[in-house]
């Protein structure tokens, strides 16, 4: 072959290849296949839309979570180890209790972003669920109601933290102008009105009980919606939101007042109506106060054990009859481990049991005496709290026989023993259930050098008290280094007992103590093994007529609520809505001198911390960064 010919052949080939490549030019960059998932795909069929429904639920704040719920370690109900070297959970929220809230990056400030994201997803769901073809009308209505409920709850959570917040009724499009995205805060009354409106829209499309409990327990039902509405209206009627004159100067940039300074008693009327309605619906759905009555117990239990177990299980037994709403997005597991005590002395090296959650002495003192009245009012109760006492046979189901402990741990109401663990205190359960043989029951011994004494920097109660309420009685320690079986439960958000107390509170605020007020508080007291308010105060209080006045009864109801709902994340918000946080939070956090082995020295009060709480602390600060981005947001007062 001639060289030139060969060359021209190659040339032709090269040109051909180049042309082929060039001709496919436009297609070359067109690589996106159809059916790339977009938001539309979420609403083309029922099963995908159901995932979006779950997405709306996924923003539920994790109540009871030690690392994120401000109501657990951010208040004054519990103390913990400050900066443990190797923490099992993030102690960041504990700084709230230690008074270092700041506007740079507010503690628990992530709820602002998270909940608004949740609200956006709720709105997306509401905008699109109509498109799903294979959804029955009834199911569609129910899903819409669930999502409206969640949208209401997310707004409510924000209002509880921040006071007046921007209401997001509808989503703004992504490419909306910058001016439009800079929303302002809405007056707090408007916020509550919108939340109630959503709940009203939702409540009657919800089922009385879930259709399939094995798959759906935890989903929103009619009782839950009614109960939340009651809680929202009670909150709206409470002093923090009802004519709070301290907040009178909180105004938007355009001068619009965010708090009305006039007290409105009508708010209590609607709260009472909502509470009663909710109670009725809950009864209709089969909710009742929980009573411990194991069907197949091998042991014949004493009444005192049954009472304390009723109190413990009303909280820690999953889906018990009293729980109206439990948050299945927040399951108590780590919290139980951090609360539990190494009562089985064979396995004290178990690193899963941290015993770290420590109620201060003021919380131990909050519980009533065994006569059902505050220890400060009880005429019969031992006044000398500093003396030591040794438990006798009569007390051995509460305190280990022959064990010496502080006198304030004696002669207390069953809720004291059901809620708290303490040095010498009997801890029923954890594998030992025969209370006819009290010496076989576990107990706590937490002085220095004892099995539950604080030995390592990561473990042990800094006050000498422990939260028994969190720990399910059937959790068992095992022989393995890290064996600890936890009976998980979804965190209860509303219990029937609280609904009763809120109803009593609302009625009392309207017209003072009526028979109905006493009736509902006494239902709760009865389950707690206490006599009625009237009997208790008449016979044992040094202020026997307290329950007959509005203010006296208010005090009684408040304390009853704090005791009944102890450690459930209620106190944190209740003290705020009552505007009672300043006196309560300014009490010092005290514990026993846990570094001592001898009871004479152990039972000396030691101040762990002086908490501070000011007017500004009633509401969260809005993060500096959020205000920088949106200058229409006004900061809360004091921040």
């Amino acid at each position, binding site marked *: 072959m001639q060289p030139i010919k060969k*060359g021209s052949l*190659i040339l032709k080939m090269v040109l051909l290849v180049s042309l082929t490549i060039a001709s496919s030019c436009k297609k*070359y*960059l067109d690589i996106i296949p159809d059916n790339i*998932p977009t938001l539309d795909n979420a609403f083309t069929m029922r099963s995908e839309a159901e995932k979006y429904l779950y997405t709306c639920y996924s923003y539920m704040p994790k109540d009871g979570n030690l690392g994120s719920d401000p109501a657990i370690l951010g208040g004054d109900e519990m103390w913990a180890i400050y900066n443990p*070297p190797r923490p099992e959970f993030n102690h960041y929220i504990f700084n709230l209790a230690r008074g270092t809230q700041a506007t740079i990056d507010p503690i628990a400030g992530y709820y602002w972003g998270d909940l608004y994201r949740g609200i956006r997803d709720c709105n997306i769901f509401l905008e699109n669920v109509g498109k799903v073809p294979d959804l029955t009308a009834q199911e569609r209505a129910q899903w819409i109601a669930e999502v409206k409920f969640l949208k209401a709850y997310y707004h409510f959570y924000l209002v509880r933290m921040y006071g007046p917040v921007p209401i997001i009724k509808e989503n703004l499009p*992504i490419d909306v102008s910058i001016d439009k*995205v800079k929303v302002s805060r809405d007056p707090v009354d408007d916020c509550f009105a919108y939340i109630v409106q959503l709940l009203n829209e939702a409540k009657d499309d919800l089922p009385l009980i879930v259709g399939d409990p094995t798959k759906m327990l935890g989903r929103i039902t009619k009782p839950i919606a009614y109960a939340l509405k009651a809680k929202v209206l009670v909150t709206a009627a409470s002093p923090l939101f009802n004519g709070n004159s301290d907040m009178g100067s909180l105004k938007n940039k355009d001068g619009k007042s965010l708090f009305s300074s006039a007290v409105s008693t009508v708010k209590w009327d609607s709260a009472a109506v909502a509470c009663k309605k909710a109670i009725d619906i809950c009864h209709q759905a089969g909710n009742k106060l929980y009573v411990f009555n194991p069907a197949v117990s091998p042991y014949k239990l004493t009444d005192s054990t049954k009472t304390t177990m009723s109190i413990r299980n009303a909280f820690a037994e999953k889906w018990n009859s009293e729980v109206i709403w439990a948050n*299945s997005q927040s399951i108590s597991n780590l919290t139980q481990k951090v609360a539990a005590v190494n009562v089985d002395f064979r396995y004290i090296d178990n690193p899963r049991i941290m015993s770290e959650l420590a109620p201060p002495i003021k919380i131990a003192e909050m519980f009533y005496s065994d006569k059902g009245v505050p220890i400060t009012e009880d005429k019969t109760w031992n006044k000398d709290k500093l003396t030591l006492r040794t438990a006798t046979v009569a007390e051995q189901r509460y305190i280990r026989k022959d064990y010496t402990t502080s006198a304030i741990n004696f002669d207390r109401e069953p809720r004291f023993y059901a809620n708290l663990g303490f040095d010498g205190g009997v801890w029923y359960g954890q594998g030992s259930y025969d209370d006819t043989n009290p010496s076989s029951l576990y107990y706590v011994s937490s002085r220095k050098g004892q099995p539950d004494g604080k030995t390592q920097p990561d473990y042990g109660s800094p006050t000498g008290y422990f939260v028994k309420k969190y720990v399910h009685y059937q959790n068992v320690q095992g022989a393995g280094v890290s064996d600890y079986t936890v009976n998980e439960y979804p965190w209860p958000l509303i219990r029937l007992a609280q609904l009763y107390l809120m109803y009593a509170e609302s009625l009392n605020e309207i017209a003072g103590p009526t028979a109905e007020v006493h009736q509902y508080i006494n239902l709760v007291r009865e389950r707690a093994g206490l006599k009625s308010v009237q009997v208790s105060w008449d016979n044992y209080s040094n202020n026997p007529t307290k329950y007959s006045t509005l203010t006296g009864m208010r005090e009684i109801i408040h304390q009853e609520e704090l005791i009944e709902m102890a450690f459930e994340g209620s106190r944190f918000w209740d003290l705020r809505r009552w505007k009672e946080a300043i006196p309560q939070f300014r009490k010092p956090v005290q514990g026993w001198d846990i570094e001592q082995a001898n009871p004479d020295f152990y039972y000396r009060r030691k101040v762990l911390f002086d908490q501070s709480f000011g007017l500004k602390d009633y509401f969260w600060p809005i993060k*500096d960064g959020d205000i920088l981005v949106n200058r229409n947001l006004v900061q809360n007062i004091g921040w």
Partner: protein
Amino acid sequence: MLILFAFLVLGAAGYAAAEGKKMKSFNEKYQQRVVIGTVFDESGGALPGVTIKIQGTERGAVTNSEGKYTIQINNTSDVLVFSFIGYISQKIVIGEKKTLDVKLLPDPKNALDEVSVVAFGVQKKESVIGSITTVKPGDLKIPSSNLTASLAGRVAGMIAYQRSGEPGRDNADFFIRGITTFGNNTRPLILIDGIELSTTDLARLQPDDIATFSIMKDATATALYGARGANGVILVTTKQGQAGKAKISFRAENSASTPTSNVEFADPVTYMKLSNEAVATRDPLMPLPYSEEKIVNTAAGKNPLVYPANDWRKMLFKDYALNQRYNLSASGGGTVARYFVSGAFNKDNGILKVDNKNNFNNNIDLKSYTLRSNVNIDLTKSTELIVRLSGNFDDYNGPLEGGEEMYRRVVRSNPVLFPAYYPVDAQHQFVKHIMFGNYGKDAGYLNPYADLVRGYKSESRSQMLAAIEIKQGLDGILKGLSIRSMINLTRTSSFSYRRGYDPFYYQLAGYDSQTDQYQISQINDNGKEYLGFEQGQNNLMATFDTQSMLNYNRTFGKKNAVSGLLVYLTRGSLSANAGDLQKSLPFRNMGISGRATYSYDRKYFAEFNFGYNGSERFAEAHRFGFFPSAGVAWSVSNEKFFEPLKKVVSNLRFRYTYGLVGNDQIGDVSDRFFYLSNVDMNNGTRGARFGKELNEYKNGVLINRYANEDISWEVAKKQNMAMEISLFGKANIIAEYYTEKRDKILMSRAAIPSTMGLSADTKANLGKASGQGIDLSIDMQHAWNKDLWLSVRGNFTYAKSKYVAFEEPQYAESYRSRIGQSINQEYGYIAERLFIDDQDARNSPKQEFVGDYGGGDIKYLDVNGDGKINEADKVPIGNPTVPEVIYGFGFSLSYKRFDISAFVQGSSNQSFWIDQGATSPFNNQTQLLKAYADSHWSEENRNIYAIWPRLSPTLNANNNNQSTWFMRDASFLRLKQVELGYTFSKRLVERIKASSFRVYVSGSNLLLFSKFKMWDAEMAGNGLGYPIQKVFNVGLNLTFN
């Protein structure tokens, strides 16, 4: 576009003047005599291929493979001109000589004096208008297996630094003319033989294989790369065979490496004492972590198993490691085909120790192999076929967590809690495993020794490239026209696995100080005595490149030179382990680009370039971008009026260019398709749980990206001004000044409040930045005589950037705005001093950090005077974190058979921060740095300017802020390289049948000068990582012809 360009080229041809004059007829005079001789290179080796011409005639000769030549001359006044690419031409009057041996010295300007590599081709050096720096491949030879380690200070216009010395993880960071974008991609485009490759591929390239190494900096030089060239281009070509006898070259090096510096820790006794102080000073009620008894007995050196005092670093790391490098290449060819074949083997070891109780190696051992074969075949007189095959292969073995992490773990390990391991005692005589020490209920403390020796990780990476290229001259159609096509296939694969056992931990159970008897007990029961296996990540990548080029190059008459180029290219790649649908779609680019140049009489030059590129990342309406650029140059020294000055100023030239270049790598890979929303329809974090047994869990939906059709390229507008000047033919200076404006930088919208509830940032091409700087390079060379010559070179790069447009919140304080600040500017608090006491802290503006603070903690300045210290008091502090100035200078001196060279490199205008969190002593068992032990605030010694504030057992939130307190100056000057060589005499070399033989010793990173002493300042904020290595090296270089 294509038509337009064709029109342009043809039009230029139309203007063309008449054909060049016919060659002068030969001087037919009687050839008087013959001169013979040999031409040598600077190291005494024979130089084949040197052109010898008699000045003023067309007569010439070429040296053969032994460097010998024969030429017939006319008379004694003839002047012989010896010239060779990359070397300085010599003119010698022949006189009466019959033999004439000549030594040619390399041209200091660059290896290729006459032509310079430009985008998609070469140009005559004197006609290049764009800003291109070429580096002599020899300058890249440092005793390291990582080519990128040699870049800092060698290249005018490149900002480079190295942060780690870990084999296989020690790639330097380098940026051409600094960083002018705050978008996703700041890296230059790396092209090796025209194919886009990664930094690691550049790192593995053998300097011996490199023919040219060029950096393209301005718009004219990079415009042809269109949407990919905005951050500059590094263009490397590998060697090709030269016709002639086979030339075999062999190089072997053996080196020892050792850290340039190590972070110093306080001794264990001081650690315990100050640990106690840290607890007591913060909370006097807290129990102290270490008893007096433990401190006293540790200090007394009592039983080290009971009173351990570990120097973890000594236990984990050796003093030095030995590394080897070998390179063998063969090249040659005949009239039809030429070849260049090379192979290289590098072995780099880490400095980690291995426990002899294990039978495996957990030290870093990186073996890398490179094979390369470039073959050029002349199919016809005008057709050339080039086949390039290359592969590089890494086999890595190293500790489970990597070398860097082992260094970091040492810092986080308590030195006194337990020994690394307990010896076998009577009670445990049947134990087969190492009894590692630990402490506490769950053995939760770091035992770095256990972490190091408990297993190893293996990784393997292979990359194969196969390219075929055809060049066809088309003089038959149009003189000066040629066409070229290339197809390249790249396959990259890697896999890794881990083998290791779970350690058993033991702790002290009892000790009798009277008898010195101790007992130990096992802590965990979940250890293993045998190895476990864990499969790592496997990656596969396939890339397909095509390039087609039409080239036109011709001189009309004597003075008008035109050239034109049209390129069409596509690139597509696919990843097998993409992980999600959008990432699994092919990555594609295509483009047409072109260049037209015109020069008149070697005085006036003009050039126009364009790139028209498309990327699959953008919506159809914005898929293609057009990037034009133009430049002019004036060679003043070629003007008639300049003649009188030429003796002093042998060359003077001015250049100016302006143009656009793009950057399509504007987002993360996971963020490729901005015009599509990205919805995760099965997201675990957005799921919910229900049901009686709490086991009904379904995933939810998460929007990861909101669609935005308008997102497009980032565009750079670049302007370059340059002056080239040569003095006395010896010193060459190139000074360039550039400005750059980056437009349409992709950034997250900052103006969207969280009440919008977006689950992903929205982004837009809103950012703007600008940059400016100076590149300066100087080289000089002088030969006193045949035996002594010296060359000196230096370069200097200054690159400064700033934000021009940046969407940010509406700050009340102007200093918080980024606009006007450098792109790598850090913000922080101004630390005034430490608080004198708690009283002082209470009386100062409230510092709003989560946590307590008091005396001895850092006092910050209330910049806006609002009585509190918070975000609003953060101001720009220090210099940028990427140096603005990089410079280097060095010399090479050759005397007879000896040669010596040294190179010094420096960096300045850079700040870094000591990681106060990672060095916070006692926090999570962190060790105590000696510098902190020596200088900290204590109640006895209230030094308010101590290095470390009041001790604390945990991280103190007040002190753990970016502030001026921990800011340091990263400026340094280092003796980067010294080399001393000896070339054996010809006589000796011929005995081993070789043509040249050189041995040398060299060292790198030998000395460091910096204000900062705690670690190597070049590592900046990464000081706790694997240190930069100092290397001592011996090598030999053997060539056979």
